């Protein structure tokens, strides 16, 4: 019987989550590693296959936009988890709470007095030119002053093992359903390991989410709904999953209508009042009257109802301004400005192509940089210099010159790696981490989050739309 072994595992010149650079198993992986090495290869393989099968039969799929005909895929799971020790996690969580609190104050300021602009911390043009800035939101007071109720911040580790913030996702971050399902799958695969080492649970996320959504409405027992663009949306599975786990209605915009200054939904017994909407559609598509008149998926008049505080919306429309990748570069200053603290988790060094010196540097060094569009997400509209051809680099140089405000660049960071099952053995694959932060009665971070893994050898792109998979993330007690 062949046992699993890490003896041939190549740690490589990266920060490895399981092994130190001198190939010693990190303390918090020791028990896990031992259990795996006591297990036969066949057993581990069959656990991996069982995991894949259960994803299929559960129908946990996402749709790929670019491939037409509504292709459904599962996001592959790798059963070797990413393990984080408690002290380190507590630091990360502290940093995330700090960041979300500061960003919420920032958004509220931007839509009211704009003190941060008047004090010259951020140039006004950065805000006015941001696609995420919605002037319709000026003067809006969302319930309890909360704008970003659900945030999914993307973190990475550099070569030294330090966590850095890569992106703030404050519009409608997806992926939390994988966190919950991956955990269920791993509990089935490694029950004895869970029992032995103790992992902080994540299963109460839907309950906490519902509590938060109820918190932002003053009525007792409010009617909460999840608003989805429909079954062809790439994250549809998650929308329906969360609605089901919370026991609330999943609605499409055609189910909603504005009547008598309120939002109501069409039921088999007539209209019913809606108090809180967890929206999973882009804010500018919510209301064709207020924003995008082309939108076919919106509810006409809903924004006015929101402005009059007759319905609560999470996340509030307008939070996208803090999601802009140029604004991102200012977040350390935003934290300092509102909280008078230094950021607990630093940013990745970011060059703003809208600024002359930075642009010059980017154009000269594009081969070594990662270039991103300011408003894109999901791995679309980006260039990874070291992995690109001359033509691709040239194309991005042109794009930057045509619209400098729309581009930022960052040094290529070799994300940390975690051993991953490849064929019969283990190989290192790059990962990032997306923790989920809820802002209701206080700011709370779900222990762990979604570890996305670039399954292609050498790849740094972890997005599910670009061949990425996921791993369960264990925060130890």
């Amino acid at each position, binding site marked *: 019987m062949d046992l699993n072994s890490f003896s041939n595992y190549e740690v490589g010149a990266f920060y490895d989550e399981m092994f130190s650079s001198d190939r010693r198993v990190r303390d918090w992986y020791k028990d896990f590693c031992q259990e795996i090495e006591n297990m036969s290869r066949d057993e581990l393989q069959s656990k991996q296959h069982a995991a894949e099968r259960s994803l299929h039969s559960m129908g946990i799929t996402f749709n790929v936009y670019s491939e037409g005909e509504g292709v459904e895929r599962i996001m592959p799971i790798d059963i070797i988890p990413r393990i984080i020790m408690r002290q380190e996690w507590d630091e990360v969580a502290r940093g995330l709470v700090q960041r979300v609190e500061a960003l919420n104050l920032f958004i509220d300021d931007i839509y009211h007095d704009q003190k941060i602009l008047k004090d010259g911390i951020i140039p006004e043009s950065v805000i006015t030119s941001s696609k995420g800035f919605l002037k319709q939101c000026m003067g809006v007071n969302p319930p309890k002053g909360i704008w970003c109720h659900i945030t999914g911040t993307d973190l990475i580790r550099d070569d030294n093992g330090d966590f850095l913030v890569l992106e703030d996702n404050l519009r409608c971050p997806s992926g939390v359903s994988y966190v919950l399902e991956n955990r269920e799958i791993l509990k089935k695969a490694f029950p004895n390991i869970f029992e032995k080492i103790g992992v902080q649970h994540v299963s109460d996320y839907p309950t906490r989410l519902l509590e938060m959504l109820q918190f932002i409405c003053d009525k007792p027992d409010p009617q909460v709904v999840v608003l989805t663009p429909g079954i062809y949306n790439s994250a549809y599975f998650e929308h*329906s*999953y969360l609605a089901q786990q919370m026991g609330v*209605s999943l609605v*499409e915009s055609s189910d909603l209508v504005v009547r008598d200054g309120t939002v109501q939904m069409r*039921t*088999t017994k007539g*209209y019913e009042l809606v108090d809180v909407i967890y929206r999973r559609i882009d804010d500018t598509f919510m209301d064709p009257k207020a924003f995008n008149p082309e939108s076919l998926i919106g509810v006409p008049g809903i924004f006015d109802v929101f402005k009059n505080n007759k319905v609560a919306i999470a996340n509030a429309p307008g939070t996208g301004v803090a999601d802009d990748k140029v604004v991102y570069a200012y977040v350390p200053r935003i934290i300092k400005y509102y909280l008078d603290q230094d950021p607990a988790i630093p940013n990745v060094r970011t060059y703003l192509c809208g600024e002359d010196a930075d642009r010059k540097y980017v154009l000269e060094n594009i081969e070594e940089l990662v270039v991103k569009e300011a408003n894109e997400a999901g791995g679309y509209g980006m260039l990874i210099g070291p992995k690109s051809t001359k033509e691709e680099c040239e194309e991005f140089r042109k794009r930057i010159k045509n619209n400098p405000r729309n581009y930022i660049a960052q040094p290529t960071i070799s994300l940390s790696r975690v051993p991953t099952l490849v064929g019969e053995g283990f190989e290192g694959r790059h990962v990032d981490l997306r923790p989920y932060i809820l802002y209701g009665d206080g700011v709370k971070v779900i222990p762990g989050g979604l570890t996305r893994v670039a399954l292609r050898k050498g790849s740094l792109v972890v997005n599910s739309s670009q061949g990425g998979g996921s791993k369960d993330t264990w925060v130890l007690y």
Partner: protein
Amino acid sequence: MLSRVANSIYWMNRYIERAENHARFIGVTFNLILDMPKHEKAQWEPMLYASGDYDTFKSFYPQSNRSNILRFMSFDERNPNAILSCVHKARENARSIREIISKEMWEHINQFYHSCKEASRREKWKIDDWQDFFNQVKMDSQLYYGIVDSTFTRNEGYQFSRLGRYLERADKTSRFVDVKYFILLPDVHEVGSNLDVLQWSAVLKSVSAFNMYRQAYLTINPAQIVEYLMLDRYFPRSLFYCLKEVEEAIIQITGHQNKQHPAVRIIGKLRSEMEYNDINDIFKIGLHESLDIFQQKLNKVGNVIHESYFALKPEPETEEQEMEQ
């Protein structure tokens, strides 16, 4: 319950029922053909007349041979009533209400779809492969009902699922009985002959009614078979039984008090008409004609259900308001 959700539950069940009945349709035809004397030409087309898909078929296929018809009825996604199309639509509906139905219901429909899809990719089909496939479809549909029965709370959603299932089944059973009308006997004198009886037995078998019928009647007699499939009060695929179920579901949805509700009224009328119908009346009008009339009335019931529960329109004053703004 959201109108859209009710609509999806209703259609999910109609489509599963439709898929099952189409598998049964093909089953009855197989049965008939295998029982035919050797020199008789295999009659595949009657199935298409009865299911109402003949015109669609002819627009895509020049020849009504077995392989074309079986492909068309099973996997041709240009045919909205093909088994694969039905299961696909059932799954799309299920997908849009996953949070409403039980996990087992979703997982089963999902697996059902994937196995039909996989079958559709297969190139070579022997006659027993087809039979296995149609059996599998039947089993998967029945397993689905078993899962619904044991996992789905008896709430409004359940009633919509019952509504969809029995409305569809009523329509399909009426078409099964009708298949026989389209199947030609070699000679008029054969009416009531062995061959005729053989054909009627095949119809019974296709709706799994043979054993149950035997308990109620001793002889295989066409008039009694028709009576059984249309008017029997206890057989779960008879027209009358299906109408009773539809009526019960509508009453559960609307409430017992609401006698004036259009859906309650229309189904009540149709059910009582069937209840006091005599088999001789049916034959007086003509079996095929009676079935035709029945199917039309059933369609009306479907329309009223749609208007009453799914198609909630904004009231006129709301529309005016919108125009003013």
